[in-house]
């Protein structure tokens, strides 16, 4: 009888073009589930401290879990785990599309890639093994072109992970595209693939992974797909652009690179319903998704912005829109397309352009430095800059080492302007609007992330009755900030390890109990929802051990200077968690069983059942 795991992973060495399968004990899956949990363990055990992220010695792991053994809602998600060229420490990022369930059918629970190919290649993984195929004809191509060419070459049913020119050029915010519709955006995993001369990973499998009770699992999945399509109808219709207006009202959305307080007129032009009216929106579904929160859009004009394809979602609209005082959806949509096709993270791209606009406004950078004016609100210029950044040209030269590197290069007090944690730019949620975000960003193992802990969702109503949270906490309650970060980090890291799309919970309204029911039908482990959420406690500890080994301590769990400045008007007027950050940080460390310097205690590691990792404490 199965448990949703093949019990083996695929290890590929690009240097000598070999592959082998390796057994993994069930105990490992019981502790860490797969995805970002399993990947962190591999990274901790198999890479040296401070390994150069772009060297052959760095590894890149593509992790999935047990949900992919059945058509579970939200199971198209996969995690990529590696050392980040941006933060130089632990990274995981997640994408969806079709790759995860398709890869699962090749007979493996995860993929570990190591070494460096001597020339560009792509991997073709099927039921019978791995082919190392030349990729010279794909090098230089966009993610969209690469995906189309590989599907022409190998058939429409294959699933394609690929990088664009940004990854080839080692841009530190290069992303990985999944079927060119979903993107593992953050932290530069695409550059790690580029450094390995790995253009794409194609999967096509037909095997069926054994599960505990297939009939029940399939029945639950079918029923949930129907149910969630109804519960999530509003989210399907409006997607994440639906939260632009409410988040702006709360003061959560970045405005003018974190210096603006309110911009309701911009939010009205960027969010729904205006978004749907001007972009002719249709939901875009990942495999096994009842919602389709990605957006298919069409821009009819002006001619330079005309396109049809993937539309921008909340993070992108905010970072390339309100963050830059740009209210032109056509420009934002075109910039989003360039980011997707050239292969970079829209969040950091928006952050970097915001930084340049602020430097230009303050006279720190001039026309000569920037090749012309870089003014707030200039959509055409923004679209140009996105391309320069993606290709590592023009203003891209400032950002070889990310936003911190740019501030060091430029000097003139710009360290005070940049908004990041551990060199990962803030995503589009403001800790001053949701206090739990402060400690969440500060301690997140990848740097400032809104999806490894998502306190912003609690401000919209996310709660977990199964974990004792009948109602969402009040967003300005500093005395509950650590608790908020603790709970939602546990659940988020569990989702990222399953691997499961958390929008099925937050957007479509699936409960933790319903997810656990499907999980138990697959695994036969008969867990409670709380036991499932507890996996997150182990996962963050493994990830934190990598941070600690890289020298990260309390001194690095800080908030940037702008977070100490309060708004004069709007939904977060007068508010900031920053003044009490140190106290909240201590509370959070204590909840995690970490010491006052943010290092997991030996007894914590043992209590979590991670005794095999004690040598890393």
């Amino acid at each position, binding site marked *: 009888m199965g448990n949703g795991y093949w019990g083996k992973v695929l290890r590929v060495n690009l240097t000598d073009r070999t592959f082998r399968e390796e057994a993994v004990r069930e105990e490992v899956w019981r502790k860490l589930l797969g995805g970002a949990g399993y990947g962190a363990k591999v990274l901790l055990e198999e890479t040296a401290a401070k390994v150069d992220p772009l060297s052959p010695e760095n590894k890149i792991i593509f992790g999935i879990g047990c949900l992919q053994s059945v058509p579970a809602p939200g199971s198209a998600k996969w995690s990529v785990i590696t050392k980040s060229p941006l933060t130089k420490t632990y990274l995981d990022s997640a994408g969806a599309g079709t790759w995860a369930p398709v890869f699962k059918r090749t007979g493996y629970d995860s993929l570990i890639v190591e070494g460096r190919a001597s020339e560009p290649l792509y991997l073709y993984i099927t039921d019978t093994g791995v082919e190392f195929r030349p990729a010279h004809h794909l090098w230089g191509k966009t993610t969209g072109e690469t995906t189309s060419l590989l599907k022409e070459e190998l058939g429409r049913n294959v699933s394609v992970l690929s990088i664009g020119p940004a990854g080839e050029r080692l841009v530190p915010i290069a992303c990985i595209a999944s079927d060119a519709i979903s993107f593992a955006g953050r932290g530069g995993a695409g550059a790690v693939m580029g450094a390995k001369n790995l253009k794409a990973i194609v999967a096509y499998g037909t095997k069926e992974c054994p599960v505990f009770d297939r009939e029940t699992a399939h029945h639950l999945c079918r029923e949930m797909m129907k149910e969630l399509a109804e519960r*999530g109808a509003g989210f399907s219709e409006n997607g994440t652009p639906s939260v632009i207006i409410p988040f702006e009202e709360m003061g959560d959305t970045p405005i003018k690179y974190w210096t603006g307080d309110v911009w309701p007129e911009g939010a009205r032009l960027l969010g729904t319903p205006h978004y749907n009216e001007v972009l002719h929106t249709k939901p875009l579904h990942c495999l096994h998704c009842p919602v389709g929160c990605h957006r298919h859009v069409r821009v009819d004009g002006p001619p330079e912005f005309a396109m049809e394809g993937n539309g921008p979602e909340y993070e992108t609209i905010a970072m390339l829109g309100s963050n830059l005082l740009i209210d032109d959806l056509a420009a934002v949509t075109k910039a989003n397309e360039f980011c997707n096709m050239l292969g970079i993270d829209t969040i950091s791209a928006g952050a970097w352009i915001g930084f340049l606009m602020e430097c230009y406004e303050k006279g720190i950078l001039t026309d000569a430095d920037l090749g012309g004016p870089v003014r707030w609100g200039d959509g055409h210029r923004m679209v140009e800059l996105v391309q320069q950044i993606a290709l590592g040209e023009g203003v891209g030269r400032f950002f070889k080492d990310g936003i911190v590197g740019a501030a060091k290069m430029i000097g003139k007090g710009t360290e005070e302007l940049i908004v990041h944690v551990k060199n990962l730019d803030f995503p589009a949620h403001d800790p001053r609007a949701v206090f739990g975000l402060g400690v969440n960003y500060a301690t997140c193992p990848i740097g400032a992330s809104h999806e490894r802990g998502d306190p912003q969702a609690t401000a919209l109503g996310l709660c977990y009755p199964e974990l004792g949270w009948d109602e969402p906490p009040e967003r300005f309650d500093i005395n509950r900030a650590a608790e908020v970060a603790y709970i939602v980090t546990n659940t988020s890291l569990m989702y990222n390890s399953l691997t499961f799309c958390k929008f099925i919970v937050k957007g479509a309204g699936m409960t933790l109990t319903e997810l656990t029911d499907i999980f138990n039908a697959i695994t036969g482990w008969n867990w409670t929802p709380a036991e499932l959420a507890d996996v997150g406690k182990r996962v963050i500890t493994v990830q934190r051990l990598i941070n600690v080994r890289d020298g990260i301590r309390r001194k690095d769990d800080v908030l940037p200077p702008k977070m100490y400045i309060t708004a004069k008007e709007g939904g977060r007027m007068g508010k900031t968690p920053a003044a009490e950050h140190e106290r909240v940080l201590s509370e959070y460390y204590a909840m995690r069983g970490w010491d006052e310097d943010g290092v997991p205690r030996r007894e914590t590691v043992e209590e979590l059942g991670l005794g095999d990792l004690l040598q890393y404490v």
Partner: protein
Amino acid sequence: MQVKVKPVSYFKKYLPEGESVITKELSSPVSVAELLRLCGFPADIQPLITVNGRRKKPDYVVADGDEILIAPPAAGG
């Protein structure tokens, strides 16, 4: 019969001034969708509905003593 309706997040703006919950007396059972209409919520808010800690659809017919949480979809990724 009596039920309680508790909007959260930005749906709180539909509460009466100074209130955190709407207590509603009903002469007969109605669906959540109808209940929200009776309480003055706009027709197009498309909320996630939780009744006594369990997720329900708008056609769920309320029972005496039900506590109904009304939240917006929380996805802002």
